[in-house]
């Protein structure tokens, strides 16, 4: 194993390029590594002592993290955090274990069980895939006929994971949700994501606006990142109409552009991530 550090990424977008440049400016021996070209033996030392895992594919990110940790490397985020964040139900369980407020959530193990459960759960309800981002395949079930149609489609999908149904309470919110970027246990930037759609994902066209990080928001976001053991986290929260903050999910491979736009020059998110990586590198992850 060398003392070098690696950044795993198969799609070098603007965020990752800024992180790479910030690491290089610190004089660190950093390698850009494309996970699509990696293969690992089950034995042997890791090629790098410290790895920043920015892989966009959750499957590749999880297995690379586990393999590199088993081979002796330190990985940011750690494999356990990547596992939990890559699965919305595991995230919900971790948040509940630590007492982090979340919307009411249920996992049904079949589409039929979900349809029965919805009678008790109530409408409207949000249905989400266990894996995935950017609001894809997230639906709002307003009444039983719509639920039946969506669940029939889910049952027809070949992937068994599609038959596990994650249902979440629909929270009436003030036309926005909140993304907090937590780095090294510190909430360093927050953005309102404003949308006319009930989904507030930037990938779906939501606009970002500056969001002050008050004590309650800081507490909820840092508690959520801690619950999933993530050093780098994008925590999504929603406000009830009475102001109560609920954590929706935690992203392990946080995209920076929206929060950076909202924060302006007040913070350099890529630079802050590079500083955390440098700190870990210099404190012994080599």
């Amino acid at each position, binding site marked *: 194993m060398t003392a070098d550090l690696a950044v795993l*990424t*198969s*799609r*070098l*977008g603007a965020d990752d*390029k800024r992180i*790479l*440049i910030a690491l*290089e400016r610190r004089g660190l021996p950093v390698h*850009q590594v*494309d996970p699509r070209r990696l293969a690992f033996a089950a034995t042997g030392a890791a090629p790098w002592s410290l790895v920043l895992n920015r892989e*966009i*594919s*959750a*499957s590749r990110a999880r297995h690379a993290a586990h393999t590199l940790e088993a081979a002796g490397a330190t990985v940011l985020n750690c494999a356990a955090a990547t596992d939990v964040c*890559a699965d919305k139900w595991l995230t919900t369980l971790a948040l509940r274990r630590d007492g982090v407020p979340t919307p009411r959530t249920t996992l049904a193990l079949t589409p039929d069980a979900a349809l029965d459960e919805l009678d008790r759960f109530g409408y409207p309800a949000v249905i989400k895939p266990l*894996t*995935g*981002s*950017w609001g*894809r395949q997230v639906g709002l079930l307003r009444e039983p006929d719509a639920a039946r149609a969506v669940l029939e489609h889910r049952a027809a999908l070949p*992937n068994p994971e599609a038959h596990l149904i994650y249902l979440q309470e629909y929270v009436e919110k003030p036309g926005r949700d909140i993304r907090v970027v937590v780095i090294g246990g510190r909430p360093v930037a927050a953005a309102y994501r404003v949308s006319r759609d009930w989904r507030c994902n930037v990938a779906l066209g939501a606009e970002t606006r500056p969001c002050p990080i008050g004590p309650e928001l800081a507490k909820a976001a840092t508690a959520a990142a801690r619950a999933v053991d993530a050093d780098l986290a*994008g925590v999504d929260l929603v406000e009830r109409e009475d102001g109560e903050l609920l954590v929706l999910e935690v*992203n*392990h*491979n*946080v*995209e920076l552009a929206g929060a950076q736009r909202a924060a302006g020059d007040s913070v350099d998110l890529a630079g802050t991530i590079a500083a955390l990586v440098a700190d870990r590198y210099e404190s012994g992850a080599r």
Partner: protein
Amino acid sequence: MVTACPECESPVDAPAAAAGALRLSELLECPGCRSELEVIALTPVTLALAPDPEEDWGE
């Protein structure tokens, strides 16, 4: 340097590969057809259509 979009052949102005201004796997957008392009080689600069998103992609 200028290279051609593999989809529509419009000229794509890529940063110089020297001094790390352009990197492997970097994503560029074609100004002609708006395709997302990936840098698959630096010498010479070679672009390919970026892969379509997969089900497990995300944050």
